[in-house]
């Protein structure tokens, strides 16, 4: 009798558990429909995360606080060895709290990386932040636009821009890492489909979807996927696809800014020794960049910010295209500039504009402009030398030297500034120009 009672009780408990499970599913669905749940329950999460989010209940907040305080103290004391682990635990305790993921990834990538003087140490911490967000944060929040945007931002700003002293190291390290997946910087759709290992690396390690890459290539042009700009665009498009209005705006901004960056320095040139990585202008992207800007401009919500950015881009582009002897493209950019910049008189001649722009910005160029100015002058020099016009070739050579010397002069006594914003030696840039010429660009 006793045994039967026990059996009945066990069956009743199991039945109750099943009923509660079913009821919970319906409750979750109702909460989702009425918008009163901040995050859906985690599905297929590892046991550790299920344990921390369910079993610890209200205590997990307290544990997260303690870990957070410990992380702050250790960071202040300069003890960084534990921070990756603490960030991992804190985020696992609050896996659906996107701010927590964003904060810790940002902290590792931005705040801690700059506390090291060695570029390889810095890069390790930048990678920790990217990995935390990409491999863990997006795993639990796959369609969270904020996290997708943050990841894109790391590529656009931390790696792609030149605000960090070690930005060149980051670019080189990322390019080296991407080289096997993107030989020569280009997507290898056929190769990927035949090589399961590379496909697995693409999908599982870097969380890149070949179909999305193909779509980006069609819409935004032939990007060099060894460079961070392409990856910023990738994650921005993902954020755009799942985000609300504000996210779409932010993602669109990231896309056209990254496109413009890719145009300015979106071609990777390996130096003569085979080890150097020097980004230079990717002139074939002009139409795509203009299309991206035009699409953003068409969005009434963005007009104020995008208009100024577009005007600035076109001003740079006219000069750049002229320097690279691409007059049709220079004229096209100039015509569009005149359309969107009422201050530029309709009668202004393109040559007058080029002259004014070049002299006005002569001493105030940024690193990309200076590189382009030197390289284009050397390109012209080589070009005219090939045609037998030595006098003209020497003139452009002198111009290149002049720009290089003037640009580098304030950097010669400041090694850190030179390291961050300086130009490669003139010979290296000449190699690049020669390569361009030989390739018939």
């Amino acid at each position, binding site marked *: 009798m006793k045994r039967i009672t026990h059996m009945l009780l066990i069956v009743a408990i199991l039945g109750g558990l099943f009923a509660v499970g079913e009821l919970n599913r319906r409750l979750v669905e109702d909460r989702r429909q009425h918008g009163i749940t901040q995050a859906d329950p985690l599905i297929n999460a590892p046991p550790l995360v299920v344990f921390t989010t369910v079993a610890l209940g209200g205590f997990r907040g307290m544990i997260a606080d303690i870990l957070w305080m410990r992380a702050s103290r250790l960071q202040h004391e*300069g*003890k*960084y*060895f*534990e*921070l*990756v*682990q603490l960030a*991992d635990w804190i985020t696992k305790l609050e896996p659906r709290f996107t701010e927590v993921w964003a904060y810790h990834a940002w902290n590792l990538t931005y705040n801690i990386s*700059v*506390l*090291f*003087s060695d570029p390889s140490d810095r890069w*390790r*911490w930048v*990678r*920790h932040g990217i990995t935390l967000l990409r491999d863990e944060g997006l795993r639990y929040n796959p369609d969270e636009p904020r996290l997708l945007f943050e990841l894109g931002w790391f590529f656009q700003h931390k790696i792609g821009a030149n605000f*960090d*002293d070690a930005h060149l190291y980051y670019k080189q390290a990322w390019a080296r890492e991407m080289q096997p997946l993107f030989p020569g910087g280009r997507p290898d759709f056929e190769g990927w489909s035949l090589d399961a290992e590379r496909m697995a690396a693409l999908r599982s390690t870097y969380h890149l979807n070949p179909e999305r890459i193909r779509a980006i290539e069609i819409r935004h042009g032939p990007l060099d996927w060894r460079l961070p700009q392409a990856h910023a665009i990738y994650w921005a498009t993902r954020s755009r696809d799942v985000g609300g209005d504000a996210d779409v705006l932010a993602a669109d901004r990231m896309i056209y800014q990254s496109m413009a960056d890719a145009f300015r320095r979106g071609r990777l040139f390996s130096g003569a020794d085979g080890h150097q990585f020097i980004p230079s202008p990717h002139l074939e992207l002009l139409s795509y960049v203009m299309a991206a800007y035009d699409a953003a401009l068409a969005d009434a919500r963005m007009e104020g910010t995008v208009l100024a950015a577009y005007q600035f881009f076109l001003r740079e582009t006219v000069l750049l295209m002229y320097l690279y002897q691409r007059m049709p493209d220079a004229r096209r950019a100039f015509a569009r500039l005149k359309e969107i910049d009422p201050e530029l008189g309709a009668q202004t001649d393109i040559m007058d504009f080029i002259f004014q722009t070049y002299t006005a910005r002569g001493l105030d160029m940024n690193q990309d402009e200076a590189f382009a100015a030197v390289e284009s002058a050397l390109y012209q020099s080589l070009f005219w030398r090939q045609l037998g016009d030595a006098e003209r070739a020497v003139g452009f050579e002198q111009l290149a030297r002049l720009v290089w010397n003037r640009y580098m002069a304030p950097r010669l*006594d*400041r*090694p*850190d*500034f030179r390291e*961050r914003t300086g130009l490669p030696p003139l010979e290296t840039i000449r190699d690049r120009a020669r390569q361009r010429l030989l390739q018939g660009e």
Partner: protein
Amino acid sequence: MHVIFAIALLAIRNAVRSKIVLILLVALIAAITLIPLTVRGDGTLSGLFQIVLSYTLGFSAFILTLNALWAGNASVASEISDKTMQLVVTKPVSRWQVWMGKWLGLTVMNAALWAVCGAVTFGMLHAHLHLSRLTDPAHAQEAQRLLTARETRLAASPDFATLAQQRLEQEVSRAPLPEGVTPGQRLMEIEQRMRIDALTVNPGGSRRWEFPKVTAAELAEPFTLRYRFASSILGQGLVRGRWLIGTPGRTDLLDVTRDSVPRALNEIVFRLDQRWENQPLVITYVDMDSEGASILFDVDGGIALLVPRGGFTANFIRGWLIMFGRLAFFTALGVTAGCLFSLPVATVVSLFLMTMVQMGGYIQDVAQTPILLPGHAASPEEAMSLAAILVTLIFKGMAFLVSPLVQESILTHLAGGKLVDNLAVVRGLLIQGLIFSLLMSGMAAYAMNRRQLALPAS
């Protein structure tokens, strides 16, 4: 004596039979085997070494502390409640012998468990280093560095208090202090100014520190100069400076130019030779920053010299011994609480006291800071209401009580390769492991003598 041993044996036997102790032991085994496999370092050998060491030993110590408290509580309190204690106390056994027997038994059991934890952690650390050396020979140097204990030495510092007093007397002799400024305030200002001046280096300027004499034995291993500073240019990436390392006779025997990161801990590793034997070490910093930044070295010591002082094994054993002293103390605390209270109350009291002891450093910090209670007080003086004074007094009292038990984190020392000196070992074992335990045994014996142990169940 054999009475104490008999009770000790009984205490061990009872503890082993306890389900909670068994659960804690399972947690202990899980901690020492799983933690090293699951933790994530910062991607460096040194990071992995430090995290495995501090997490494995830290978790083990925490679980053993809980074990010590619980087993100590239960060894007396539950025996009193289930009346088995009557079998002991009706025999010619004094109360202090009961206490001592329980404490000894549980301390021996904890010592054995702690020895296992120490040995397993030590073995795993060496296995990590060995494997890393096999996979990457470049790690050999790093492994060697991790296996060296280093003593932190600070430069000789002037007596700022006396110097400030002298400066104040000079000022007062020349002219009276401005109205509203007390001599105490002015003295504090002068002393702070002097301390800051001693740590500031202006563009093109230099600052010199003198460290104690270097012995011949110390010359074999490399020295490390560790420093942290702030730059007067906010957000500055790297600051260039020149470090001259020498002797009082010749200050520039070594000349190192280095770009350092503001706010971060920067290190320079260098070797010394016979020229430094029995000579004070003189270090000079010359600010060479091209952006014209002034720098302020960290007020907590400015710069420190890490001097090799023996191997990791001896350091590990010393750290292990100090932590064992702590464990013996918590065992004594558990047994004493068990003598004084019923099991639930003893558990709560023990956990509270354990938390207080573990947070001793924090309590001391709070006690030294003026406590301002929320309100609309315009000044600290106004805010010192009666309630605030009371809270301050409570914290000061707690800080006084825990002060002998507050110690620097041994795990941080071991993980960071800092020397754990013999004096700290003696202090840890003697004060925590013995003196406090004996004091508690007296208190517990007194309480047990006053307590009626064979009351009928209500």
